[in-house]
């Protein structure tokens, strides 16, 4: 048990260091940007009509004049105390905006994550077990097609077909326009989330399915599957008894690694469906040079991704008998 706790502690420490690295890297990248936040947000014409003091005030607001190191350390210390600053565009605390947006996105992300995981695993196992036969060719072809399709275009396509032509779903925003957010029924929300969630799930499947297939092919070529065949076990029995069991470990890694991909996809999908989630906020913040917000979103998504990695490592310890029994002995 002590061994396991040590392992988890090490992982968490590494995660914290990585997060620090991410925040620094993102901060440096944003600071290096030659784009003048005043010009992007206030506009050239407006700037021209302002007095020197007004401009200086604005420059202070957008943090143009503070030295780099001071700004980063300042941000870091308040962030460690739970204050991620104030969004320059929305003029609200970053954490509050992230909280609202994440609440909107979370269902979308979770749904897509679970569905693409289940579908990807099923299709991958099927294709790997029937390697070279038609289901395999079909799955591989489909995955190749999907992975060659830009996520945002797939979103556009689904939007055109299901929202514009068939009118089954609304074409944008997570709530109908002109309705108070509180009075929106859960059903309405659901209707708005269906298409984005579907797009995300479809794009998430191909990576998981292809990688699972590779693993399954390895399993099918292993000595123990050869022996199982020699012992007269049928293909379905081999797939269920040996295939799933041995694909499970890499599948855990794949599933948690796909978190990053799903979040990345949501940036594009939310943009197309004007879905007011975290991804859309990232794009708005990036285009508007809203550094505190973009930094906050980057650090938060990285935390989710690293958290996923740590979860995968810990789950491994539970599932893999070598680690489980090894730990029991130690």
């Amino acid at each position, binding site marked *: 048990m002590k061994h396991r706790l040590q392992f988890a502690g090490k992982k968490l420490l590494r995660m914290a260091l*990585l*997060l620090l*690295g*991410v925040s620094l*890297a*993102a901060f*440096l*990248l*944003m600071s*290096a*940007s*030659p*784009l003048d936040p005043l010009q992007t947000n206030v506009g050239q014409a407006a700037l021209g009509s302002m007095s020197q003091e007004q401009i200086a005030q604005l420059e202070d607001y957008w943090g143009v004049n503070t030295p780099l190191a001071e700004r980063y350390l300042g941000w870091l210390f308040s962030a460690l105390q739970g204050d991620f600053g104030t969004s320059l565009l929305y003029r609200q605390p970053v954490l509050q905006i992230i909280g609202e947006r994440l609440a909107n996105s979370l269902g979308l992300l979770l749904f897509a994550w679970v569905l693409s995981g289940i579908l990807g695993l099923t299709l991958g196992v099927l294709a790997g077990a029937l390697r070279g036969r038609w289901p395999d060719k079909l799955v591989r072809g489909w995955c*190749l*097609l999907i*992975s*060659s*399709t*830009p*996520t*945002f*275009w797939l979103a*556009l*396509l689904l*939007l*055109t077909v299901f929202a*514009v032509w068939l009118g089954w779903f609304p*074409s944008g925003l997570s709530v109908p326009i002109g309705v108070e957010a509180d009075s929106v029924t859960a059903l309405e929300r659901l209707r708005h989330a269906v298409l984005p969630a579907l797009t995300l799930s479809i794009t998430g499947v191909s990576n998981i399915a292809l990688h699972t297939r590779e693993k399954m092919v390895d399993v099918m070529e292993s000595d123990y599957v050869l022996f199982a065949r020699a012992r007269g076990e049928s293909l379905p029995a081999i797939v269920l008894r040996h295939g799933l069991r041995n694909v499970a470990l890499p599948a855990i890694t794949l599933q948690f690694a796909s978190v*990053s*991909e799903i*979040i*990345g*996809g949501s*940036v*594009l999908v939310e*943009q*197309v469906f004007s879905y007011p989630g975290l991804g859309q906020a*990232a*794009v708005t913040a*990036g*285009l508007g*040079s809203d550094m505190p917000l*973009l930094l906050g*979103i*980057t650090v938060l*998504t*990285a935390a989710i*991704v*690293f958290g996923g990695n740590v979860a995968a490592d810990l789950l491994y310890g539970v599932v893999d008998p070598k680690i489980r029994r090894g730990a029991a002995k130690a």
Partner: protein
Amino acid sequence: MRRLNQRQRALLLLLLAAAVLLAITLAGALLTGRAMETDFSRLNLAPDLPYLFGTDWMGRDMFARTLTGLSLSIRIGALTACVSAVIALVLGVAAALNRKLDAVFSWCIDLFLGIPHILLVMLISLAFGRGFLGVVAGVSLSHWPSLARLLRGEVLQLRQAPYLRLARKLGVPRRDLIRRHLLPHLLPQFLTGLILQFPHAILHEASVTFLGFGLSSEQPAIGVILSESMRYLTTGRWWLALFPGLALVGVVLLFAALGEQARRLLDPSSIHQ
């Protein structure tokens, strides 16, 4: 006709895909003028002759715009794929040969993979001021980890190979070792990896441009075309989004096929198929 075996077919497919892509690139480059040409006598035409892909709200020929956009995408894709593959080669080999570098390297990769890819490209593009430079830097500086990791693993494995350990013991100079033994083994991996970067690079270029972090909106890039088409989808002008997107998928598929065939030809373990 004699039936071709798999490898001959692979070679043929590879050449065919390369030829089509080259033709698109050239055609697109030649049509740039036409792609920008506005003509208010032919606004919003649905696809038909002579405008196969229709025209947009400024009367621009969508076929020419699509080809030009593809050509741009292919050229940027090629550039960024090459840059990131070279970065991958240098970092991967350096990490495998030096322990301290290796620790830094794996930490950097973990850090890079921690940020969702599209967000990372956005951030790098911002740092370079968006536009052409931004998208090229964003895509090429964010694509190297997987290939670098692969090459690193390959070098580490080669270093442990008995014949190389023997050669080192026999005093073969390090430079000769790298040139005569390491590089010939890495080359197929590297080339395949390079070609397989193309589809990703193209897709990310289009995505980032679509979001507004890439090529400027005056350029007929696929991302720009599709971003503009969004405003007209609800009014039923489906062709503005359908054809450019389909064409992009086609080009990416061609690159994927190119990479797959190259892998087939260069991979020694494929002799058994």
